[in-house]
């Protein structure tokens, strides 16, 4: 214990911190700040928030835990993840199974385990952990990377947790796993020909997957094609979201006064539909600021990956970039009616401690990669 602490202190003092990537932290903090402000605006005058901790206070607690975690992880060489890849994989599978069995019921989905009064959705953390597992596998493939077996094994590795999450049921997170897989395979240099063939096969099998969905998932999924199909039911949310986004104009209606979101027309606005609040309150300019911040963040992550000292670091960066990009595209696309409605959070902005903690953990690893880019390979 004492030794570990000493190592930690030493590492904080070390010259690694000269390579600390301040831009990465800046974009993350800006996005988180916007998230707290938007969450506050969304919850303003919301009667259901009265009583327990307000969403904003909870977010601040989670954020401080997350930022602490960020610095701790950054200070440690990220290679511990590589060594522990196999145990981590087993833990992910185990915890996802446990979550599926004992999770508390949130909107009909078994998605979270409650610890000390704060809900923790393990499926959020599992995304980041699976990035590490997959990075360890792919970076070890070296010259065999172009073989079909790379894609098959990586696919199977990812399919198990994705299936467990899908059965919770949490369709959104299961899709994120697929997004991560595709992004990482692409960046690893896997065979584009085989990937294309497999992608064609998966698209061919899509109708089977759709038939496995619950009715409510299916209805929500297809709302974006024809929102007026069921305006009072499953598509109600999407129609209201479009109205809210559309009424934002150039500069928005201002914080806490937005009409659509404010009046509770969008039931889960403080979570998955948070971008409607941004768009309505802050308008096109506010929306563009968020998209730009995400663009800068993704670029920064890719750059850190490119400059990583080894393929393991590069693959982790590729996975995190894929995950964030995928979630941003699907979440914002969803509220703007160009993507199906699935429960995917907007990174750093959607209220949700587990999402925030997991992301900051991932950002900590990135920082660790960045800080150690110039060290010799182990």
């Amino acid at each position, binding site marked *: 214990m004492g030794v570990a602490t000493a190592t930690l202190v030493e590492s904080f003092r070390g010259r690694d911190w000269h390579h600390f990537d301040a831009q990465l932290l800046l974009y993350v903090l800006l996005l988180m700040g916007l998230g707290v402000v938007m969450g506050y605006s969304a919850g303003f*005058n919301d009667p*259901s928030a009265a009583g327990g901790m307000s969403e904003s206070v909870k977010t601040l607690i989670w954020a401080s835990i997350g930022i602490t975690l960020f610095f701790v992880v950054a200070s440690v060489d990220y290679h511990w993840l590589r060594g522990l890849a196999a145990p981590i994989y087993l833990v992910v599978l185990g915890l996802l199974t446990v979550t599926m069995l004992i999770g508390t019921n949130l909107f009909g989905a078994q998605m979270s385990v409650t610890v000390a009064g704060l809900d923790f959705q393990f499926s959020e953390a599992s995304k980041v952990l699976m990035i590490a597992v997959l990075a360890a596998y792919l970076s070890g493939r070296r010259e065999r990377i172009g073989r079909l077996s790379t894609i098959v094994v990586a696919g199977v590795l990812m399919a198990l947790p994705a299936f467990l999450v899908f059965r919770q049921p949490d369709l959104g997170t299961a899709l994120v796993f697929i997004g991560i897989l595709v992004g990482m395979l692409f960046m690893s240099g896997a065979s584009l020909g085989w990937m294309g063939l497999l992608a064609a096969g998966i698209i061919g099998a899509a109708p089977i997957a759709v038939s496995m969905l619950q009715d409510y998932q299916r209805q929500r999924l297809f709302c974006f094609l024809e929102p007026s199909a069921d305006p009072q039911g499953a598509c109600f949310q999407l129609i209201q979201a479009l*109205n809210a986004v559309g009424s934002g104009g150039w500069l928005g209606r201002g914080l806490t006064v937005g009409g659509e979101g404010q009046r509770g027309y969008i039931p889960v606005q403080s979570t998955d539909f948070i971008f409607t609040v941004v768009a309505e309150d802050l308008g096109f300019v506010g929306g*563009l600021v968020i998209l730009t911040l995400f663009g800068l963040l993704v670029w920064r992550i890719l750059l850190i990956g490119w400059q990583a000292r080894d*393929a393991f670091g590069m693959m982790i960066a590729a996975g995190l970039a894929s995950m964030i990009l995928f979630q941003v595209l699907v979440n914002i696309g969803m509220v703007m009616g160009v993507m199906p409605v699935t429960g995917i959070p907007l990174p750093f902005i959607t209220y949700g401690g587990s999402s925030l903690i997991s992301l900051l953990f991932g950002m900590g690893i990135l920082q660790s990669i960045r800080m150690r880019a110039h060290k010799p390979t182990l």
Partner: protein
Amino acid sequence: MADLNDGRVDLHRSPGRFIAFSIAAMLLLLALGGRLFHLQILDGEVYAGRATADRTAEVPIPAPRGLIFDRAGRAIAVSVPAWTVKIRPADLPAADRSRVIARVATLTGADRAALRGRLDAFSGSPFDLVPLERGVSREAALLIGEEAEALPGVVVTVEPIRRYLDESGAAGGPLLSHVIGYTGPVSRDELATLEADGYLRDDVIGKAGVEASFEEELRGTYGSQLVERDASGRQLKVIETIREPTPGRNLMLTIDAEIQRKATQALTWGMEVADVSQGVTVVMNPQTGEILAMVSLPAYDNNKFAAGISTEDFNVYLADPDRPLRNHAVTDIYPPGSTYKLVTGIAAMEEGVTTPGRQWPTFGCYQIPGAPDGECLYDWNRQGFGPLDMVDAFAKSSDTFFYQMAVETGIDPLAEWAGELGFGKLSGIRLPSEEEGIVASTDWARQQGRSGVFTGELAQAGIGQNVVAVTPLQLLNAYAALANGGTLMKPMIARGETDATGELVVPYEPEVLHEIGADEGTLQTMRIGAREVITSGHAYNIRDLDLPGALSGKTGTAEFGELTDQGTLPFHSWFVAYLPSTAGATDADLAVVSFNYSAVVPGNVSAEVVKYFLQLHYDLDEDLRLDPNDFSLVTAN
């Protein structure tokens, strides 16, 4: 291209893939920005307009429901303001649901399960108000107001509910419940067909009696207004009134609440002394068909329904074998017994089977033609009466005389004349759930898979047994047609529409169903017979009533069911009477029928009920009611 991480590669890094990924990411984010621009800037006004449209809503303005008066202008159904507890599901967090419902139940004294049931049954938008409990006390309403903070989603409003009054203006549901009926919350099934007519999810609708059958008149037309609403759907302000509501029309019934009271009093007395479980008394003006009183016992309290009946109370009504929720006068059918001899007599004379003066032998037991020897149908008088003509036979109610009339007439002519007198078809009274009854005919037999009616059945049809069933109202209406000279009227329950004070402004005209196609002489013979029933027949002392006319009528019984401990069959008793100025005259303006179900006391309790009613109605000093032990003096048949 030179490797940027020269010398530190364990996996080949492809700059092509890196660049492709980066460009793809930026293009995708740019596309999102483009979509945002499209939504917010290019189409912004469209969506902003829709969002504003969400904030304003056209909401209905309910029309005040029409009042109901009796024929003397007494208000008998009024609307009074009452506290109603409602809940807006969108404002009630799921976690607080049980607690809030339990607290509302405690404060209002309502049943927790019933409240939860009403909330669960609601199918509308979560922003709509769901009525949980109507007619809440003022104290409870104030307490809920005080605890508003702890009861999210709960709203207390003032709404009109129905209050049903008796002849004295006091709350008196049971007096007129079967006529007036009650209102209640519109059901999901009703809403499915009525939503297009402007019915709302939390609307009330007439459920029974006049409230249901005159729903259209009483409801009026709802108006509408444009309002602005806030986050929780609460109304902020009225922007404009689009259409003013048209109040429902006020109705005057043909019922006289005082006559209703007297008929109820007489029937209640008769049922009690004869230990009868169900009874009916209907009073009518035979000239117009107006119903002056319609009593069906046991009755129910429609004021319980108006405020939202509890499941317990409702189940008590449902479980009662005497079916207090049914108006036995129009929705239940019974064998008419000897009262039906009116039909047989008219048919026999009109079909040329007999003439008023022709005498027929009567028997102790009538041998059924074509049946084996000894298979006969008894007269109630096992000795027989000797030769009788139509008037005597009707007065003495000889069964064997009318067996012969029926058999000679034939089943289909008999059925035709029954139809002529209104049997076997709806009278058309504007009350819900009227029954048409059963009249045996060849067609009727074929519907049952037989080739025709047996001769024995035909004979029994002649005395209203076995294959004939009528509503008390049909029987009264047939005798009313006899009384008024041969016009079958459509029984009327509403006299017209009134102003707010109960003054008749739009009278409804009496409606003739048809003239009975019988010879005037035939009807006159039956009227003489009906008078003879009172004077020389066996209605006993009813003839001694000091009435302003020549009371005429007919008794009847029909045995049914299983033998009692005394070895007799329980029986229905009937008495139908009308009061012309002199014997045979057609100027009667009062006709009354009484029916009692399942008496075990011998004698005709219905005749006693009518006698007592006439005493009360004409305010007679002398009380001629028999001791219940002497009811057998009024021969049942």
